[in-house]
């Protein structure tokens, strides 16, 4: 018995030990991608240059509106390399030089960079100086050599620069800023040593400068007046002819500048097109020998003959986009053109010498959620039968990028996701009774097999193949991507609105797109020329009818940039992605207030404030008005006029007194105002608490058994102002003339609860408000470092509720309603700490019940997300905390906040161009879901206090089962043995 029991005990202990060793809290290498996903995007493509060598990888280099330069594989659309420039480093030109460098011109023509084509390493960078501001033009001539150096001509900041493409040296420069010429084009005729710089002076002169490209010497300067005046547009038709319109847009003007001699040739538009009403628009496509004009929705191609005669070649309707010309074999050139028709897009490639012939004509079925084609780039290749084949890269209305070849979509990229404006989450549908879980999930055998594999892995018996299988099983777990609600609330839909006006529903499992919708209300139309999306709100979140009703979201946008522009609203079903209802051109929308009331169908009431400070109630039902009227006197809101430096509080007054009776419209009145002195303060940041935040307890027990009551109010506003002098870039103001003042304001009464000045500090300020504290980040000019400060606010009026006798007798005021009109007795505590990084975004983790301790999620300047425990930003930290304080979790005071490399949420990944962090509580109290967006997307689960309420994901149930079985078996075996032994003893 002894040997057997010892063996069993040993085995069990070994098992226990191994399973204990498995429990760990930090992220290991093989856990990457288990709970997180990362997606890389580039944004809407502005320009594309193909690089298709005869052998090797074929690629296209693109520049985008998110200031990304990327090299994409033409075969599958994957990113070969990508460089994200800063947000103020706008790319204005891109080209390939010497067949190995990608040349980009950015920052208004002041920075020229060369990137190595295969791997995207930066080869050289040139800062171009200039005194003026102008159009920036990049021209990389293929055969312009000076002393064996290929030249790049750049016009930027009012000067022309010639730059060596080998090392980026500026060979010469010529300043045009003094000439007050508005340069339109740089022309470099092939084979010549001269370049022409052409442009307008005022609206009535045309100037040509002939320049020697070898040394930048000005050879000739001609100027000629034009009586009709120019419209400002200009199009280069050939190397000596420029086309423009006169100021009335009724005449086409050809300007020839052969050898610097200017000749005008005017043709009235009516001569070409007959009598038509519309105003012509020149389309900016570079086509040799001819040009295209858009008139009354049709595109007309006009050839310029040698003598300056204009000849209409073709008239094409429904043209969406025209590509530039590309050269195909034997000196011919071709261009592509895309038309829309009956749900398809038609791609046509025409040779330039004969526009009636088509080199290619294809029709491609297109997903109607992509909208119309915005841009097309054509590239040719040699087919297997030695004929010319064409592929086209098209940019759609929703910013997606597609490659078309042989009448099919080869690949597509959802690059609209690089410009997310707002995010909300939605629960997934509840698992219905009709669907058997077992059918959808794996069967028992698979389940057991999986666990046996896991067990093998745990016991280190797994072979390399098994390890790979285990890893794949963990990563591709079917559980994660199911389209139903899960018990822990990890599976959700992230509904995101992009700048293109498209709505995507992303699954939190792997970030796959569940549905997408190009919002009809946010598309360009006759009534709405420049639609912009603003925000998404939860419109309906069914709890009682969760089985048979779908949640929906409200999307708010407006037609135009100004706040007076009419608003558009649409309501979209969160499960199906169908638009349920939409309202266009309602009233202007300045502010959207989701009210904490819902009607009988659980639609949330929203109050939309227009530019005249009127409130409009939605949904427009009488039931909603009834609910609203009940709470009429309890509704307050505030508005911030950042330019004026005024914050105002408003309350409702009564129905609008307009001509038409509108029972959903309400007048407002100002009930308070705060006027910041314009000479010393300028509002730079305002932050409020999140409406959805849950606070677990108001009381906070501090070290010496004292209770402090958090001042918890949903109506607190944090405002940061800086001195106007210090509102510029860091370094433009001295510490003496710059200060930062922070306020905590009650938005019902306008009461300033706390006001504090940081001298010698300046913005930008990033802040987050949660529970009773606010944390903000700014720059300290005196210490030359970034700082983070915390303000905690405590309620003193409840502080004397510590007497047990009082509590027993009910003499406490804990249950009395709080009114903002009572004079608050608050105390604030604050502390500042140095923080190394500058910050792009800051947020705090939210959990379901608010019990779990909080972490700050800081989007750092290097596009990573750092999780910083809130305990580090405790104003009560002291140099030598007492034993009790230590037990409470107070960390000894330090001057700087620690940056622990392991606490990067994004581990080794970067969320390029990080713009925002969104946290959503899961149903499991310990866990929160964090979604970070920028050019890239990143999603992960976080457990700020570790997962204390659940077993880890890779907990081996099989191991537990086997242990139990083994234990039971051992009990039986030992019992039988002991029986036997006893019997033996008894028989002795």
């Amino acid at each position, binding site marked *: 018995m*002894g040997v057997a029991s*010892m063996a069993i005990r*040993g085995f069990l*202990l070994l098992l226990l030990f191994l399973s204990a060793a498995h429990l760990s809290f930090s992220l290991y290498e093989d856990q990457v991608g288990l709970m997180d996903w990362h997606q890389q995007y580039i944004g809407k493509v502005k320009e594309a240059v193909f690089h298709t060598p005869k052998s090797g990888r074929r690629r296209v280099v693109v520049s985008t509106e998110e200031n990304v330069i990327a090299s994409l594989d033409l075969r599958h659309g994957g990113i070969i390399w990508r460089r994200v420039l800063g947000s103020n480093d706008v790319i204005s030109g891109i080209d390939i030089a010497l067949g190995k460098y990608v040349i980009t011109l950015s920052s208004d023509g002041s920075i020229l960079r060369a990137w190595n084509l295969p791997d995207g390493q930066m080869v050289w960078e040139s800062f171009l100086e200039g005194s003026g501001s102008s159009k920036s033009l990049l021209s990389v001539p293929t055969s312009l050599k000076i002393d064996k150096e290929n030249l790049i001509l750049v016009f930027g900041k009012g000067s022309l620069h010639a730059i060596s493409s080998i090392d980026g040296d500026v060979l010469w420069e010529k300043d045009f800023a003094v000439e007050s010429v508005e340069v339109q084009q740089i022309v470099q005729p092939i084979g010549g040593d001269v370049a022409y710089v052409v442009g307008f002076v005022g609206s009535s002169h045309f100037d040509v400068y002939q320049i020697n490209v070898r040394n930048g010497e000005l050879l000739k300067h001609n100027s000629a007046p034009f009586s009709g005046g120019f419209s400002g547009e200009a199009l280069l038709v050939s190397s000596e002819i420029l086309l423009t319109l006169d100021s009335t847009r009724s005449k086409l003007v050809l300007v020839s500048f052969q050898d610097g001699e200017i000749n005008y040739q005017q043709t009235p538009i009516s001569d070409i097109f007959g009598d038509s009403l519309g105003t012509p628009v020149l389309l900016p496509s570079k086509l040799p020998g001819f040009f295209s004009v858009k008139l009354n929705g049709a595109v007309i191609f006009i050839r310029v003959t040698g003598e300056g005669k204009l000849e209409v070649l073709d008239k094409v309707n429904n043209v969406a986009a025209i590509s530039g010309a590309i050269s195909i074999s034997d000196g011919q050139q071709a261009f592509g053109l895309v038309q829309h028709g009956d749900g398809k897009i038609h791609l046509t490639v025409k040779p330039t010498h004969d526009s009636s012939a088509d080199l290619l004509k294809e029709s491609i079925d297109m997903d109607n959620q992509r909208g119309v084609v915005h841009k097309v780039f054509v590239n040719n290749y040699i087919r297997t039968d030695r004929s010319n084949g064409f592929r086209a890269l098209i940019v759609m209305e929703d910013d997606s990028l597609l490659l078309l070849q042989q009448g099919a979509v080869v690949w597509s990229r959802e690059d609209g996701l690089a410009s997310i404006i707002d995010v909300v989450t939605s629960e997934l549908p509840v698992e219905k009774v009709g669907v058997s879980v077992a059918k959808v999930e794996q069967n028992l055998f698979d389940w057991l097999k999986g666990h046996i594999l896991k067990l093998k892995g745990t016991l280190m018996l797994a072979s390399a193949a098994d390890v790979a299988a285990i890893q794949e099983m963990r990563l591709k777990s079917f559980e994660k991507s199911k389209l139903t609600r899960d018990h822990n609330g990890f599976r959700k839909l992230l509904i995101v609105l992009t700048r293109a006006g498209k709505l995507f529903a992303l699954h939190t499992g792997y970030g796959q797109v569940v549905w997408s919708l190009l919002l009809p209300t946010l598309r360009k139309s006759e009534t709405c020329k420049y639609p912009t999306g603003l925000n998404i709100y939860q419109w309906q979140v069914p709890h009682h009818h969760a089985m048979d009703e779908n949640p929906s979201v409200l999307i708010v946008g407006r037609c135009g940039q100004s706040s007076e522009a009419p608003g558009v609203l649409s309501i979209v079903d969160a499960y199906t992605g169908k638009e349920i209802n939409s309202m266009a051109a309602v009233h202007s929308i300045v502010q959207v207030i*989701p*009210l904490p009331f819902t009607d009988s169908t659980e639609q949330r009431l929203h*109050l939309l404030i227009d530019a005249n400070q009127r409130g409009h109630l939605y949904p427009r039902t009488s039931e909603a008005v009834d609910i609203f009227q009940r709470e009429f*006197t*309890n*509704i*307050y*809101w505030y508005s911030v006029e950042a330019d004026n430096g005024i914050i105002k509080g408003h309350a409702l*007054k009564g129905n609008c007194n307009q001509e038409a009776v509108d029972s959903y419209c309400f007048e407002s009145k*100002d*009930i*308070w*105002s*705060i*006027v*910041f*002195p*314009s000479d*010393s303060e300028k509002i730079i940041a305002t932050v409020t608490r999140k409406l959805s935040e849950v606070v677990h307890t108001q009381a906070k027990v501090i070290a010496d058994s004292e209770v402090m009551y958090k001042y918890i109010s*949903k*109506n607190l506003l944090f405002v940061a102002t800086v001195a106007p002098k210090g509102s510029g870039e860091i370094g433009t103001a001295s510490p003496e003339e710059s200060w930062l*003042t922070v306020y905590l304001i009650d938005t*019902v*009464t*306008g*009461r*300033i609860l706390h*006001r504090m*000045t940081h*001298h010698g500090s300046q913005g930008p300020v990033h802040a987050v408000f949660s529970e009773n504290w606010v944390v903000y980040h700014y720059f*300290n000019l005196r210490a030359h470092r970034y700082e983070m*400060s915390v303000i905690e606010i405590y309620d003193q009026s409840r502080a004397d509720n510590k007497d047990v006798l009082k509590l027993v007798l*009910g003499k406490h*005021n804990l*249950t*009395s*309603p709080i*009114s*903002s*009109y*009572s*004079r608050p007795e608050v105390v604030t505590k*604050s*502390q*500042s700490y140095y923080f190394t990084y500058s910050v792009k975004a800051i947020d705090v983790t939210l959990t379901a019940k608010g019990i779990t301790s909080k972490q700050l999620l800081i989007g750092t300047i290097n596009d990573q997300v750092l999780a910083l425990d809130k305990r580090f930003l405790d104003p009560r930290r002291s*140099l030598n905390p007492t034993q009790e304080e230590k037990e409470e979790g107070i*960390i*000894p005071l*330090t*001057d*700087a*906040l*620690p*940056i*622990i490399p392991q606490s990067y949420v994004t581990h080794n990944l970067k969320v390029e161009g990080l713009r925002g962090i969104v946290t959503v509580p899961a149903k499991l109290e310990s866990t929160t879901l964090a979604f970070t967006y920028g050019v890239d997307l990143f999603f992960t689960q976080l457990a700020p206090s570790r997962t204390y309420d659940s077993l880890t994901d890779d907990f081996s149930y099989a191991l537990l089962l086997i242990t139990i079985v083994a234990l039971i078996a051992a009990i039986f075996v030992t019992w039988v043995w002991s029986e036997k032994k006893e019997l033996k*003893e008894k028989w002795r």
Partner: protein
Amino acid sequence: MALSRSSSQSSHRRLIFVISAVLCITVAAAFQSDELLVDDEEFGLEGGLHTKSPDLTFTRPTPPPPSTTASTTRKRFSDPDSDSKIQFQLHHAFGDSDFSPAGTFSARLKTWNHGGQTLTKLRFSRNAFTEEEKEKFALLLKGDDFYRIRLPSSILNPPGRDYVISSVKARCLPREGLDEHFVIHTDGINILAVNYGSPGACPYPRQMKLPGKWFFNSHTVLKNSEQAPRAPVFAEEILGVGGEVGEGEIVPPPERSFWAKYWMYLIPLGLIVMNAITQAMNMAEEGAGQPAGQAQQPAAVQRGSSSAVRRR
């Protein structure tokens, strides 16, 4: 978005509340005094912290024809040319009506050597309500509407850019008389905001109550911005002492005891040892039982099981 909401409240709580509120009022009424308390700023403490009491001014309203503050003016010994006396008007409005004068604030403007100007010695004289105003106010009380006040945002050239407005539900003011409390946030010669309300609590739901006396008890507080605490700066020596936590390193966990460290090895070891001992004893017993039992006899007798066997 802002909402002031209430939770339900039992009537007996309300009663207690009313009692306590009344108690509060009586207490407040008991210590009314005419004495003007002195600003701490007058002693030259620049940007000094404002606690609640030092600059709380207590003024009784002057009789209906408002005469400027006379009785309580005290002569100060401060530098005469750096001080200038200044006055600004308080306006009030009933509900949505237009603003009309309601009182006068007078203060001294102190000019500092470095050019900054601050307000000190704020005094307030409140015009008592006229009969018409009383009616209007009673109407406000009935409708639970707002009583609004405003001050110019700039003292030197009123109204400055705009007036700063504050309002309170009229039902919050009546106590014994009409109790009001002003907090004026200033920045040099500018008034950023005025917070107006009752000096104590204003429990929700607000009860309709006409004031006993149409008499204002005004309390005014002048507030300037506080200086934010600086980030702690450690000298090098101090860093040396607490250095290991200074750079954000993880503090090494305290040394654990031998048992705490190695219990997982010690327990199985103990078990093995115990097993081994039992086994050894069993072996010894078996060995003793058969070939030569004499020597072990006394020990063997004491073992229950074997003795039972013997007995059989």
